[in-house]
């Protein structure tokens, strides 16, 4: 049975061989691929010296009582060749002594974008968020850009707050969202710094590649296999380029595991101005990554993610709403369906759990 199944699948052996070759490379022989560096701020360069000896344990630091997590969610609702309508929102959650004390979710923004489409909505969006952008040339990324902007507006609201969260977590990498004036952005980070709020950006994945296509994270996993369970380790992988100074808007990049043996390897971006406190910051962050729901991942980000994400059922609702209003305004039903109907549901009806669900409690 098994054998014949394997024969029916083409290309399996080759794929496995391909992966094996990537992972067989000698860590010491590697270096970062050039094209990866393009996605990084020009102010930093990746250190090529990734070796076990440079990995450090974070051993001590002050406990941080209050922590805020920011995340965004976005999704495409309908798309048709040269235009797309998406939806996005952002959320912000505050924990104090491991208890959630507040949370906010922005309204959902419906984002119409298209080739040659200059949308009044986007202009309104830019106005609300003190941003400018070229919605015509960047239309393919418009929903994501708007999401980043909503996250940015959350961050900005914190600068005005004096209730002093000691640490602000953002899902993703540190960087100025397109549409936002870089001067405004670095100004914001400086303000936060002055109020003693540390911004730490946390990514669950990293596209950084080592040598010939080998994912850096897996290389790290291999190097840290022997570390004791529960260890907090980190490795700085960036340096400031000549001519740049430590600053609130230029990050240092780290790879870190906040709960070795169980947690994922994360990429952390910490403003370089905090460079000397890196160990205690990472240690404090790890203090919020001890929840058994997701060991090694800062729990406040889990909740921020849950609040911001756009679930499939919601997507469907919004799709339905758009269609209803479109039909009301004179677009024919058939015309609309011909362009946008998603027939996947129908094709997958036999396996769709949403159709099988009987009610709010499917325990």
């Amino acid at each position, binding site marked *: 049975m098994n054998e014949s199944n394997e024969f029916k699948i083409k290309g399996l052996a080759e794929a496995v061989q391909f992966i094996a070759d990537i992972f067989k490379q000698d860590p010491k022989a590697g270096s970062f691929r050039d094209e990866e560096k393009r996605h990084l701020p020009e102010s930093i360069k990746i250190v090529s010296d990734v070796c076990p000896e440079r990995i450090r344990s974070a051993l001590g630091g002050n406990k941080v009582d209050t922590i805020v997590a920011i995340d965004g969610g976005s999704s495409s609702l309908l798309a048709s060749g040269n235009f797309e309508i998406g939806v996005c929102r952002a959320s912000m959650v505050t924990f104090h002594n*491991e*208890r959630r004390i507040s949370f906010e979710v922005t309204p959902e923004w419906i984002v119409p974008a298209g080739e040659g489409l200059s949308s009044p909505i986007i202009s309104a969006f830019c106005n609300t968020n003190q941003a400018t952008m070229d919605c015509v040339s960047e239309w393919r990324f418009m929903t994501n850009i708007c999401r980043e902007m909503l996250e940015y507006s959350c961050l900005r609201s914190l600068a005005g707050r004096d209730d002093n969260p000691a640490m602000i977590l953002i899902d993703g990498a540190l960087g100025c969202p397109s549409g936002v004036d870089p001067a405004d952005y670095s100004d914001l980070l400086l303000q936060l710094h002055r109020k003693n709020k540390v911004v730490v950006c946390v990514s669950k994945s990293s596209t950084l590649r080592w040598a010939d296509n080998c994912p850096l994270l897996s290389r790290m996993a291999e190097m840290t296999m022997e570390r004791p369970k529960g260890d907090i380790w980190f490795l700085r992988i960036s340096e400031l380029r000549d001519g740049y100074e430590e600053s609130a808007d230029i990050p240092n990049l780290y790879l870190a595991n906040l*709960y070795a*043996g169980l947690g994922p390897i994360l990429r952390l971006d910490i403003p370089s101005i905090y460079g000397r406190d890196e160990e205690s910051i990472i240690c404090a962050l790890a203090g919020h990554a001890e929840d*058994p*729901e997701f*060991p090694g991942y800062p*729990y406040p980000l889990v909740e921020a993610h849950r609040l911001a994400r756009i679930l499939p059922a919601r997507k469907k609702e919004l799709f339905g709403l758009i269609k209803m209003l479109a039909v009301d305004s004179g677009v024919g039903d058939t015309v609309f369906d011909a362009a946008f109907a998603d027939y996947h549901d129908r094709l997958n009806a036999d396996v769709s759990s949403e159709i099988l669900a009987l009610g709010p409690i499917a*325990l």
Partner: protein
Amino acid sequence: MTKIRKYKGRIIGRSITEIYVRALHDTNLVLGEILIAGEGDTRFFLRVVDVSYGWEAGNAGWAIGVAGSMIEMEQSDRGFVMHDRARRNFEIGKCVIMGYTKQGEFRRAKTLPELFSQVFIPDADDFNFIKDYAGDLRVGKLRSGEELLDFEVGMGSGYIQSHIGIFATTGMGKSNLMKRLAASVMESHNVGMLIFDPHGEYYEGGERDKRGLKHHFRAKDNLTVFSYRKLSEKSNGLRINHREIDIEDLLHLFEFSQAQMEAAYALHNCFGNDWLKILSESEGAELAKEMPSSKFHEMTIAVLQRRARQILKQEIFHKDDTVSVTDAIITELKKAKVVLIDLSGLSGWRELLPAAVIARKVFDVYRHAFRKPEEFRSLPKVSIVLEEAQRVLGQLSGIKENIFTRICREGRKFKVGLTAITQQPKLIDEEIISQFNTLFVLGLADERDRNIIRSSARQDFSELSREIQMLQPGEALISSPQAPFAIPAKVDLYEDHIKNQKESVKTRDEIPSPDRNFFG
């Protein structure tokens, strides 16, 4: 006046037959607990019939994964810190809608409370409507889960002729409830109650710290005791005349072959009520001569004779025609008293035969009185209380019925009811159980016992099985014809009741005398 109610959670689904409630963080739901929902003058009453774990993360495997991480994290020095545990892990109560009140009137629910409605802990005021169903024979307090509300509940004395079932696994409080019920009968003094006590626990309480019916403050006036053994204080001896033993009384206590049964009837035809005495005293051959028309095998007669001698050897059965207490018993019952027949020391048929004879006598007297409306109207209703009732109400092999099953089927019309106490309702004929209009269900461990109640009770017990299984001693569900649902109660401990009554009597001047017109 606006009350501040204690908030317990919100309704999260699902249908008119099962309502789910998410409990407030850090709040426990209790099986059997009553919750209320609804705004304005409409109040829905919900009863918690199951409690389960809940968490917000949608997938069912969440807890398994988290527990796995906890176990792994414990193995490192750091351990784990669960954020906001109370909010993330909570309880979900499955409830049934008992009904709703609108402007104080209770109705069955045909609509749903709103989704996300807040639910609250009720207070005694919310149960004002139950006053109409609480009955005049009080046995305890209204109970919500484990909490007691300041509200007395019981059954209506007007329903005792429609039979009462008291069901509980051993040690769950049947005898205590019976004493408490008898106390109410003594206090209200408007119905009669005939209690057969095979264990000798009702008169003095049996054990050292316990109290019996004689300790009740109304015992002097409203309790009469007949006892086979000598009791420490004034009680009447229990003597029954042999002539009062009917063939029917024997049929279900002994196994008779067809031939033996025919012979017994023939003897009765021939000698009338003296048949037992003559049978026990005569020679077999003589008897055959006396009954020339019928031909019976000598062996058949010999078996009957041995039985007759066995019976009449009992001290309790007297051959002296002038001695009998059954009339006295009936006289006392007619005075709406509690009559206690202490049969302790007797067992098996020796205990059941006197009970059957007395019960039949009572039944016959009432049945005959029925034909004289004037007299019948003045008779108080009576209940005949039988412990271990499954012995006489079970699936009867071959025999159609006995006096107790007969009372169950016909007694209501004649104001004679049965109170059947048993540990094993499953052994009672289902059709007989369905005759019991009032049920006191205490803790029942055996599922088959719970099932039989479910299939025969008036109120819907189907969702209450789990609660019945978990009841503590003295905790009960009272199902009665007038109440719209099985009322959860905590039966008073008889000893406490005695103490409280004594205290309250001291502060009362006079006990009102019984109102004769009450008997209807």
